[in-house]
């Protein structure tokens, strides 16, 4: 067991990534940050719309999209990959819709059937054409965020911007943030009150599919670095953590960014210390932050609830509402 956890070397774990290792680990941190930001921002809306598991489904089912795009385009270009992922994302959404509308199978089972089948197709394609598809099975599961800095750098007007993967992810994260700011009202209204959205003339179907398309693009850009399953964590953890701390959407979005930054930076250090998968460590740190919020959240944390329940309230004092996670009726 002692071999499993290496001794803590502050020089290696805390200083190195910011000094000599900045040119490699810096990019990993930045990449993790971008992934977590893009995923976390859109993940907030998935959580609000109770579609967290559709995110799960899409993150699995972009795999065959990518594999088929590779096989058709015979290159690892960004465009075929995005197109393949978009197609896969839309196909997933439609398939779930069809199975659950046209038969008596419930939505949860429909999600499970759809994504597992598509993922299975993807894995088989990869193992059959392993030599031609530049992906391996492990990469699919937990990504290679440690290697992003090796990627060929992008240069615009003579200035080197950084590895292509990171730049791409940064652009995707920026676009996501911009779109959310631009369509803030539409997303907000259609997420919370579909009736109001309808009366305001917001087409809920368009918003739904736009969200799914955006999600597919984000997932595919994050895919190589964090893998299919950890993407789910990146989608759900920041939003879930933030929504335990605040009730207001703007604050939640801000906290999402904070959570993303913290889990990316701290995750890298943990990974260096334990010598394990960087993406995995980032998610573990994210999960740890979630647990902290769960316990210590000022408005609804376990600790606060426990304290509330301990304090005896005199009868003549009107009892303040005990912060409750659930509606009293349910």
């Amino acid at each position, binding site marked *: 067991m002692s071999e499993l956890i290496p001794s803590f070397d502050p020089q290696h774990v805390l200083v190195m990534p910011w000094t000599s290792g900045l040119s490699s680990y810096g990019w990993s941190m930045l990449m993790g940050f971008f992934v977590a930001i893009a995923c976390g921002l859109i993940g907030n809306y998935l959580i609000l719309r109770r579609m967290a598991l559709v995110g*799960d489904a899409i993150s699995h089912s972009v795999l065959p999209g990518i594999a088929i795009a590779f096989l058709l385009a015979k290159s690892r270009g960004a465009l075929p990959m995005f197109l393949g992922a978009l197609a896969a994302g839309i196909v997933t959404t439609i398939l779930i819709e069809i199975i659950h509308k046209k038969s008596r*199978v419930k939505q949860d089972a429909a999600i499970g059937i759809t994504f597992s089948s598509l993922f*299975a197709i993807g894995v088989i394609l990869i193992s059959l054409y392993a030599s031609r598809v530049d992906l391996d099975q492990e990469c699919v599961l*937990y990504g290679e965020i440690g290697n992003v800095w090796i990627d060929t750098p992008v240069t615009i007007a003579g200035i080197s911007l950084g590895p292509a993967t990171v730049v791409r992810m940064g652009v995707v994260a920026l676009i996501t943030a911009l779109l959310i700011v631009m369509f803030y009202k539409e997303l907000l209204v259609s997420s919370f009150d579909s009736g109001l959205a309808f009366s305001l003339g917001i087409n809920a179907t368009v918003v739904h599919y736009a969200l799914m398309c955006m999600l597919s693009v984000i997932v595919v850009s994050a895919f190589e670095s964090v893998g299919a399953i950890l993407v*789910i964590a990146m989608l759900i953890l920041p939003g879930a953590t933030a929504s335990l701390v605040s009730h207001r959407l703007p604050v939640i979005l801000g906290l999402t960014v904070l959570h993303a930054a913290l889990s990316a930076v701290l995750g890298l250090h943990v990974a260096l210390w334990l010598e394990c*998968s960087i993406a995995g460590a980032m998610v573990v740190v994210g999960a740890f932050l979630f647990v902290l919020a*769960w316990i210590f959240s000022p408005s*609804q944390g376990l600790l606060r609830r426990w304290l509330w329940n301990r304090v005896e309230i005199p009868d003549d004092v009107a009892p303040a509402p005990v912060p409750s*996670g659930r509606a009293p009726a349910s």
Partner: protein
Amino acid sequence: MKHYSPFTVRHSLFVLVFVCLSASPAHAAKIGDLVHTNVLEQAIDFFTFREPAVRFALLGSMLLGICCGLLGSFIVVRKMALVGDALSHAVLPGVALGFLWNMSKDPIAIFVGATIAGLVGTSVVTLIKQTTRLKEDTALGLVLASFFAVGICLLTMIQRLPTGNKTGIDKFLFGQAAAMGADDVRLIAIVTVLSITIIALFYKEFLLTSFDAGFAKVAGFPAQAIHYGLMLLLAFSVVIALQAVGVVLVSAMLITPAAAAYLLTDRMSRMLWLAAFFGMAAGAVGAFFSYLGPNLPTGPFMVLGATAVFVLAFLFGPRHGVVMRWWRQRSRAQRIQRENTLKSMYHVLEAREFKGDGVSLRELSERRRETIEEAKQQVGDLRSHALVTLQEEGNVAFLTPEGWQLACAIVRNHRLWELYLTNAAHIAADHVHEDAEKIEHVLGEEVVRDLERRLEYATTDPHGRRIPSLADLRRGGAGRERTEELVGYGRRS
């Protein structure tokens, strides 16, 4: 309603247990040792268990297919399908810890570790749901991915360790049935037998808590205990399936065969049988395909096998299948179209007070406000069902005795209903036509008889037209010897 005795189910499940036990594995080598070229020959060798090398893989895959199918049926009807998904991902840290126990792929240690991790995962989901305002889907996704991340970290840490036999630990991700040994198959058999026994013994309890939790509680069944029992069995089945199917796709083995069975039957006992059978078939198919190539993972092929069954059930299921439903709708639409044409022919004949038998296409098309071409097509359809005969180069249609009867029956249905609506429901006479247009096609024999009685065998409808009577129905068959009495107007019996 047919009463289905629980004892039949129980007995049949015990037979299944016996089959499982009697097929105990013999000693065998690994799949990879074999080299074959002919697929058919391989298939024969494979499925007849003649090839000793593949007995373990095939047997293990089939057994776990049975186990997953049975347990999956309950999670599908309980709408907990994705709990299986969360559970299967959450076991990964347990697998890693089980491996660390004595640095080898000891099935028992991994089994224990994975089961504990899975149960912890599901408890955390419940806890998050109860103590925060996060919804179930968020809690499931969160636990699934976080536990998986911990598992990935542990696995990558194990892989850099200098000691220990690490081979095969990565196979837990996508599954490799060929890597199964005698110990694994024994474990799978034990869990399968255990699941079957428990389901057989507590069939009534499982059934009741799955379909009517409130009643189960009132009737004094320990719903909570049964829920946790099911979770424990699920965790067991996920863990035994890991090696063959892999962490990522185990949930599909739980959901897909059961969902396919769910589309085919309405009875839980039959659903269990079907799901077990589909799971077994999917397991065999998966093991076979991964046996064909050197580096093919088993799990994805199993999942695709199960998906193929699901797609077939989805499309061609006799009652709920999409194609079957479409076909039924289409034939109903065609029947209604035919009946409407017949009705129009009746109206044409009625307009000239039944002088002459033939209805020309021109008259028909004017009556129906359609083109001659459309009328011709409809009459052609009637002719192919022997309801009319065509003469004068296909321009004049004559009702056959059957056609006449059906036309009378439809008009009769229509007018009786109109009369009923005005008399009994006091709807104005000019408002009843639309409703009667729809209902005339679906009124059954019994209802028509009832209407007749209620309307005291009236002979004219609210618009003052005559309702075709039994005598009219017979008139069409005047030229023919009748051997049977007519018993109704919707259909002849």
